[in-house]
């Protein structure tokens, strides 16, 4: 084509139009069209999702498990299960790694070397392994002790009946047990079951020490409620965002999420709670219909006069710089004001608040606050769970306190207990050395049988190891606690078979068959756990309530329960307790300050590790490799000190420091935490494992310690559990330094944006 002026103008015009057109049409995402389907399109094979229970999470979560070609692939929350409502805790999914762990014990083993040497030889279940068990039960069942993880439901029933009928004892073990919490609930509310907190509908929550967003009872359920509490649908329309105050001498994950964090002297939580009560009563701010006279034996505020803010503020150790310009007493009064005026409100407490010599007093004072603001049984308040729908199924685990363990140890030592059975519990690691459990086993030389699937400090003391099936390979059930406020039974079914190179047997089945061989047919008339479950389901069907109403027969109910993961009856509800007379004055009378064991510059605050808990998950690489939410440290024992304190002591991140109490000392790597109170040293549990999988024990000994080892076992609460939060410790540099295995980078993580537009996390005040 010849380029004429006419042509040129025409083309110029056309291209101008084209350009404009291109500009008008919104340019969408730049995308490359590939003529082929992409690898991501290739989805092959069929998967099945089975509903069962996630035993890896301490509170028993309902889960669904994805199974393909006989292999479990994913564990996630069961949306139908009322407790966790389709969500799961960080600890839930790792069931997969316990199932397919390379260090899983493959079959029965008999000790060949000296006790604790870890020398075993493999034996066959039949007849050798079971014969030995039979022999030991016949000879030594009187006085035997069965130590398990907290067990509820059918397995709890089997364990209880098995031991009681054969003349032994069953005790649940947890390193930081909940005995004090239970007894406080019992005394304040006269309830045997743990309450459920309707945080989702509350407007104001004061939490004392309970790390309920991380490791405390029912944390998954409470986290879901917390989401609602912040930005639930109702809140978004009404603009009533919940307000969270966390009272805690340590900067926990819950403290990190609180709108206000109030660090106080460890163990003074009860004082603060009663002080709030005093302000509420003296200013008449209690909820309508609350009979203050009954609560205080007619004395009114005078009953709590000793706890008036002005009286005790100085002793609480509230930092002066907190909300600059206000005295501590004013801060307490403000808090009481807000708490009583922004209902529905909840006061809850636990963890370190209850782990002091005055722990029961603390927790009672805290929970009694709920009466004052009228939050019992109401929406957005504290509600109680009904008991188990079947009398046969225990709804609360039978737990041992430190005092119980001391008794067990002395029984073993004196030969009263000749047989020790252990299932998924690790008292050797989880009890302070001073309790002497391990030495008792060495001295008393009982026959020890472990039903664990993994080597650990207790199992390595065993004479006979009879590995249990993984929970994904076995039957079971659960009466969840804390429950959702109505009756629930969770159903656990085998979703995969054990791999061919593994030969585990169900712990429950063994107990049942042994009981029958010992002539306890009448106590435990079930062929196996599955049969026991079927019996339960028949019982449930007979009630005709809840899920049972949807099934035409017990068999149908069985299938339905397997499909949906359990049975529940939403129409049931727990009791609404009323306050015992004179509750507040009684509590006030018990009021005393905490005692601290030992001396040292710092309050020692051990805490449960977000993923390893007390160390039971230390062999799971996923759990070791998941950063702690606040410090982001992994794979190590870290020691938290306030950053300025650390600096003043000449300590830097990664310095190996020794934390010493009267009972001993441990080492860990220093993590300077800008949010920790200057007089506190915080150390997580979880590491310091000495036997078992390399994942648990492989670390440098300087960065893997068990803080429980330095607690003095004689430092107990009112009810004989360990006052694990009431120790003082000193911190010394060892001169060594290691790199901290943390996820956070090496520069201080503070935002650097100058303008709102540059901030990564934007914050608004409405």
């Amino acid at each position, binding site marked *: 084509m010849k380029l004429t002026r006419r042509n040129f103008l025409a083309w110029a015009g056309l291209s101008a139009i084209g350009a404009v057109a291109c500009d008008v049409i919104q340019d969408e995402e730049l995308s490359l069209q590939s003529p082929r389907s992409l690898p991501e399109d290739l989805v092959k094979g069929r998967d099945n999702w089975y509903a069962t229970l996630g035993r890896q999470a301490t509170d028993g979560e309902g889960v669904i498990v994805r199974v393909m070609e006989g292999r479990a692939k994913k564990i996630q929350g069961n949306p139908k299960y009322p407790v966790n409502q389709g969500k799961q805790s960080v600890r839930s999914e790792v069931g997969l790694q316990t199932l397919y762990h390379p260090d899983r014990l493959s079959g029965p083993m008999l000790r060949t070397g000296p006790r604790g040497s870890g020398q075993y030889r493999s034996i066959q279940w039949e007849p050798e392994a079971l014969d030995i068990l039979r022999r030991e039960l016949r000879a030594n069942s009187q006085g035997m002790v069965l130590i398990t993880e907290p067990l509820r439901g059918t397995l709890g029933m089997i364990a209880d009946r098995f031991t009681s009928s054969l003349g032994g004892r069953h005790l649940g073990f947890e390193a930081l047990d909940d005995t004090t919490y239970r007894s406080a609930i019992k005394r304040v509310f006269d309830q045997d079951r743990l309450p459920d907190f309707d945080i989702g509908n509350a407007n104001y929550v004061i939490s004392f020490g309970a790390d309920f967003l991380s490791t405390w009872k029912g944390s998954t359920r409470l986290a879901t409620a917390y989401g609602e509490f912040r930005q639930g649908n109702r809140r978004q329309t009404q603009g009533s965002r919940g307000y969270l105050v966390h009272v805690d001498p340590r900067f926990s994950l819950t403290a990190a999420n609180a709108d206000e964090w109030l660090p106080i002297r460890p163990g003074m939580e009860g004082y603060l709670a009663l002080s709030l009560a005093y302000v509420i009563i003296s200013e008449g701010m209690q909820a309508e219909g609350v009979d203050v006279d009954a609560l205080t034996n007619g004395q009114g505020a005078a009953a709590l006069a000793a706890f008036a803010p002005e009286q005790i503020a100085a002793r609480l150790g509230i930092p002066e710089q907190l909300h600059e310009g206000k005295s501590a007493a004013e801060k307490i009064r403000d808090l009481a004001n807000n708490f009583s005026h922004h209902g529905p409100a909840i006061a809850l407490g636990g963890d370190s608040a209850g782990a002091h010599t005055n722990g029961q007093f603390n927790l009672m004072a805290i929970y009694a606050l709920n009466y004052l603001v009228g939050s019992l049984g109401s929406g957005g308040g504290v509600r109680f769970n009904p008991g188990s729908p079947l009398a046969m199924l225990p709804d609360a685990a039978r737990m041992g306190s430190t005092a119980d363990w001391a008794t067990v140890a002395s029984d073993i030592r004196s030969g009263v207990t000749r047989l020790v059975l252990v299932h998924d519990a690790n008292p050797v690691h989880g009890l302070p050395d001073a309790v002497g459990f391990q030495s008792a086993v060495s001295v008393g030389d009982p026959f020890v049988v472990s039903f664990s699937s993994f080597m650990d400090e207790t199992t390595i003391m065993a004479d006979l190891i009879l590995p249990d099936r993984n929970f994904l390979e076995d039957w079971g059930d659960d009466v969840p606690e804390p429950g959702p406020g109505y009756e629930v039974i969770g159903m656990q079914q085998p979703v995969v078979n054990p791999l061919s190179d593994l030969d585990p047997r169900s712990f429950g089945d063994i107990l049942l068959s042994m009981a029958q061989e010992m002539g306890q047919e009448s106590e435990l008339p079930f062929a196996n756990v599955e049969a026991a479950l079927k019996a339960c389901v028949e019982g449930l069907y007979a009630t005709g309530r809840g899920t049972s109403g949807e099934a035409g027969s017990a068999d149908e109910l069985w299938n339905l329960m397997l499909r949906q993961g359990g049975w529940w009856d939403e129409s049931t509800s727990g009791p609404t307790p009323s306050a015992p007379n004179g509750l507040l004055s009684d509590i006030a009378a018990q009021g005393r300050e905490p005692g601290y064991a030992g001396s040292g510059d710092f309050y020692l605050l051990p805490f449960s590790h977000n993923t390893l808990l007390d160390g039971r998950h230390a062999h799971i690489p996923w759990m070791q490799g998941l950063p702690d939410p606040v410090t982001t440290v992994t794979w190590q024992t870290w020691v938290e000190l306030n950053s300025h304190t650390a600096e003043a002591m000449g300590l830097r991140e990664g310095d190996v420091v020794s934390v010493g109490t009267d009972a001993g000392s441990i080492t860990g790597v220093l993590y300077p935490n800008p949010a920790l109170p200057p007089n506190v040293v915080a150390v997580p549990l979880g590491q310091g494992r000495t036997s078992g999988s390399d994942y648990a024990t492989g670390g440098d000994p300087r960065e893997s310690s068990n803080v429980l080892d330095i607690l003095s076992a004689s430092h107990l609460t009112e009810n004989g559990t360990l006052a694990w939060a009431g120790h003082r410790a000193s911190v010394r540099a060892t001169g060594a330094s290691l790199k901290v295995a943390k996820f956070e980078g*090496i520069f201080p993580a503070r935002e650097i944006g100058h303008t709102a537009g540059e901030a990564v996390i934007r914050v608004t005040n409405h």
Partner: protein
Amino acid sequence: MQEGRVLSTREVNRDLLRSILDTPRWFWPVVTVLGLILLIAAIAVGIMVNRGLGVTGLNRPVAWGFFITNFVFWIGISHAGVMLSAILRLAKAEWRRPATRAAEVLTLFSLMTAMVMPIVHTGRPWRILYWVFPYDFARGIWPNIRTPLVWDPSAILTYLTSSTLFVAIALIPDFAVLRDHTTGIAHRVYSVLAMGWEGNARQWKLQIVAGVLLSALILPVFVSVHSIVSWDFGMAVAVKSWHSTVFAPYFVVGAVHSGVSAVAFALILLRWCYGWQDYIRHEHIDALGRLLIVVATGWFYFLVMEILFGMYGREADELMVRQTQFTYWPYNFWFILFVITTYFIPVALWLSRAWRRNLWIMSIACISVNVGMWLERFLIIVPGLINKQLFTFVWADYRPSIFEYIIIGSTFALVTMLMLLFSRVFPLVPLYDVKEGDVLKTQVQIGRRTVPATFRED
């Protein structure tokens, strides 16, 4: 005043072919040592490819480190050849003559070495084909022409091709001389390479025209290569300090700075090795020194501007990168060292005529420049990545591993070895160019003095 005596053709041939026709005593031991270094590096690369880049000190967020630094460095060195040959040839700068060949060859070898770097630095170097060459017809997906990583190989390969041509054409007359001085297989090889050169007028004319044309053609390539290398960084919107607007010219000038210094040093080394005092003379080194003052100062201006522009926007993360460069250990140390060695030490030395003519001092100055320029690339690449963006949570440091040191070190051995081997088969100082220069030198007479036809007088 142009120095040096007039040499006969015979002398020139004898001296300049010395490196080819006799083997100096140090030659094989040196080559063996270099070979050993390369062998160790090859093993290091082997392990790295086999086990993964985990053996390096790279991490998140520092995904590029020593290898890319070294890549940019060698690309920079490669700019000397064209700078000297093409520009000076077009500018008819007389003093260039002995320097051109060495400079061009250095260009070739440093380019080749540079190309190795991004390849070994990739996670799967064996897949290099479908990155660099558009072969992947089957799936209908061609290399992504939007990425500087595709511009890079295009520019570099173009530069390599044109530089090779440039060297080859300049070599033809010398091949003819070699053909005439050798026997046996060497004679036959040189015969082929000389392509029937007879030295007649037409051949000379063609050869000179080709040289001039290539010089002109290669200039845009020369500018674009390092501009494109700078766009490896300039295109990275996410890395603060990587997309300074002055990067392209800044990199080009920096490349000339380091490249010419490297050539000056290489010339001093060759003069010393092969006793070429009559060819590589003080006046040549002096002239390079003077040129370098100008280049260095231009480069310094860009450096200051780069920092100034970077800070001017007052973006929080850009300021953090600068803070890291200037104040954090060890980057503050490297930064000070970099500025001193790249500019203040060498320029101070070059300002004195006597020092420009002192080969020891010149060597120190030239090495200093290259130490500094290596640090410059490192200080551009790494601090930016350490403090990449506003997510301060992921900032992390970078400590190169022994593997990186070995491989980086070996590239210097590689270039040295290639240069040495080349000098054994091809003349590193162009015979005909020197002869031509001598011819010109004797031609012009002004008054009673014989003045060479050079572009300037002392």
